[in-house]
């Protein structure tokens, strides 16, 4: 059994040590908000927070995160929508929506570490793939989320 701290709760799971965190979340814990896109850390659909940083859970073995605080899209905000989710709503970002949980988690981690990101910061930090091409709205929404977080909106 491996003990995990997920969304402020402690859970024990039975899985081989090399199982990627993504598949523990999805198939064992039924936290299906974290998506599978590539299995190789290339697209970011599976982004979660580990110790406050955006991590691609499809390439992290579950044994490596046993003592760390893991946050998934389901646990992003406990009191109403997170500023990033509010901004995503304002800018009507999504199309098919599949990449959006990972994109939102990447944006939330960016803002946590850099509350006022400029375009260059966004370019460097938001490397998730959106096949529908919602990028112009992702950029606008991150800037709006920064304003919401800082109380400017």
């Amino acid at each position: 059994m491996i003990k995990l701290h997920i969304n402020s709760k402690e859970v024990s799971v039975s899985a081989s040590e090399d199982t990627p965190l993504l598949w523990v979340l999805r198939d064992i814990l039924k936290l299906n908000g974290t998506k599978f896109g590539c299995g190789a850390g290339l697209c970011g659909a599976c982004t979660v927070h580990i110790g406050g940083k955006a991590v691609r859970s499809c390439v992290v073995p579950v044994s490596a995160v046993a003592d760390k605080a893991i946050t998934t899209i389901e646990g992003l905000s406990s009191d109403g929508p997170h500023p990033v989710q509010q901004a995503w709503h304002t800018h009507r970002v999504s199309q098919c929506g599949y990449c959006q949980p990972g994109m939102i988690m990447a944006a939330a981690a960016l803002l946590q570490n850099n509350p006022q990101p400029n375009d260059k910061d966004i370019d460097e930090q938001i490397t998730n793939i959106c096949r529908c091409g919602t990028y112009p709205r992702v950029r606008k929404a991150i800037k709006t989320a920064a304003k919401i977080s800082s109380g400017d909106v």
Partner: protein
Amino acid sequence: MKSSRIKRRSFLHGVTTVSALATFPIAISGCQTTPTMSAGNTDILYWVSINSDNTVTFKIPQPEIGQAATTTVSQLLAEELEADWDSVRTEFYDPNTNLDNANVYVWTPTLASLSANHLFDPARTAGAQIRAMLISAAASSFDCNQDELFASRNFVHHKSDGRKLTYAELALAASAMQPPGAGQLELKTQEDWKLIGKSIDRLDLKQSTHAGIKYGIDVEVPNMRHAAIRQCPVYGGRLIKVDDSVLNGFPGAPKVITLKGGHAGYNSPVPEGEDPDLWATPVTTSDAVAVVADTWWQAKRALDALEPQWDEGEFKHTSSDSLRASLSDKLTKPLDLSISRGDVATAKKSAAQVHQAEYYYPFMDPAPLEPLNCTAVVNENSAEIWAGTQYADEAIEVASKLTGLPRQQIEFHIMHSGGGFGRRAENDFVYQAVQIAMAISGTPVKLLWTREECIRKSFCAPLTLVKYEGAIDAQGEVSAWVCRAASGQAGDQAYGATEFPFHFPNSLIEYDRSTPSPIPFGWMRGVGYTQHLWMNFGFLDELARLAGGDPAHMYRSLLHESKIPLGIESREIAVQRVNTLRRVLDATLELTSWDTHKSAEKSGRGIAVSDTEYYPGYGSTSAKSAVVDVSLTEEHGLSINKVFIVIDCGTVINPDIVVNQLEGGVAYALTNALYSEIVVEQGRVEQSNFHDYPILKAHEMPEVQIEILPGTGKPLSVGEDALPITIAALVNAIADAGGPRIRSLPIKLKQA
């Protein structure tokens, strides 16, 4: 004009057949309706359920792949039903209901950007009919005339005495009323629209920000097992043997199931009277090995340990290069489809300049982000299937044939798709999941492909080679246009060459799509126009530059009634086309200050304008243009600075959704132009994941400015529309900036 083949085939002939069958199917079906009650909810005319809490549930007649049909169709239904928008719930239609009731939903596949166009009248008519039935029921209840009543926000009110009844109270009586025929209905006019034309939030917007959308991959069924799959790496290959004894001791109780490749239906409706194997191409799968285990990761690990032996079949020595060579050889002879106008040979003799060029389009995988998946359980007398597919009516037929169960004993749940772009028009993954479920009868199983499997075993846009020849006369006008195209075996995409809206005094257009291909054909976003429009504009731009003029001015002069040869078929339609396109072009030249704009050094601007008509008069597609600004920085680094899109897409149901689709279409176009190439070597796809089949990322996305021109009539296509014009404008912008002439995709210039 002479044509070697009288009967023109086209992607969408099937649609006309379907539409003619049942232009307003609601009235027809209404007569056959038996009211159904479930948990106090009442289905009326198949399209709407009035719920006991006075909310309404709309049956969305299209799978949702991100195109927002869930929202736009709901706007149409709610507008005429006078439904309270906040009370609108949705669910996807049931394919059996459609197939058992003469195609009551009119247009159910998510294909060819047709939902808004094909459902505009039917959905509004359904809403109006149901409203009329509710009013009729209220008139009976109040014992008054119907014209004393009106419907508003899920109530029917009496105009003068204040009496009112909820839709829920009226629903059962209403469902037994005879629906008024289409001729007896008066649909609301534009001035009275409260929902159509408004940028209402997508109905799934909140769910999309909270991971609340359930995709096929998220299906959970009690006692469900998981399957991973590996197909013969060479298309059409057969399994010789696989040794499953190596899995002894593997966790998750893995079980090996071998799958026969075969015919998994078709990837679009086939018109009556057409040979489906010629008109489209059958969806044919290769043999495969699947492993079923307790979790997907266990299934995948077990599958990775297997070493199946394959008979790789007829394509084992075929490569992209060998196919290209075959096409090149084919182009030395006259081709199957040949349309000739005027006298090209004479025009060439008297020309001031004659120019030739060869253009190339590689295989491309549509690559939706959600990997292909399907969940199925097959019992002795029933089956249940959950899948994100673009073509559910075909998926259920595929399952019925495989299991031998009548369709009606199969329950099919359409799930949200994490993108489609054509790839989910093939139901190969449904075909496989049902076979696996049959092998473990009674146990539900979710089949999920890896990304590697998705890229290596896709149904691709066909590899295509085109030879152009053009003549320019002494006045600098294009006097002859020759476009001869050959592709690997494919559905009919010849319209990409034959329906180019520009006309020339002498022309020859030829097409062949019969050469066996190591990758099966699939429709990809923008279909034949995505392949051909950039080539057509690229070569026309070459001619314009040789003639020494501004390409945009050449396009403008060509988009004129006087340029359309007398005596051609459907000349009026051609005239209307060029007039519309000229209007869009003029708006674009004004928006972009084309005539006064000066590009900086090593910078350039390209332009393209077209509709995407499949055959003369089809009339479902928008007129649109793109202008792309680029600069070429040190060592030929390409920077795409801005993209303008101008569109006339008829009546707009939801402007913000149009903008979102076009922005996304630009991103998709740039991925095609800059990155997408599936290369076959020894019958195998060389690419495997997003490191070698890259998708555009946020930092590469240029600024996009979109202008929607005021439009009238039915809504026209939007989902695919940004692709062909953006790629076309981009390749010409690179030439304008002094860069190389792009005649092959992807563009292999260094990115800035």
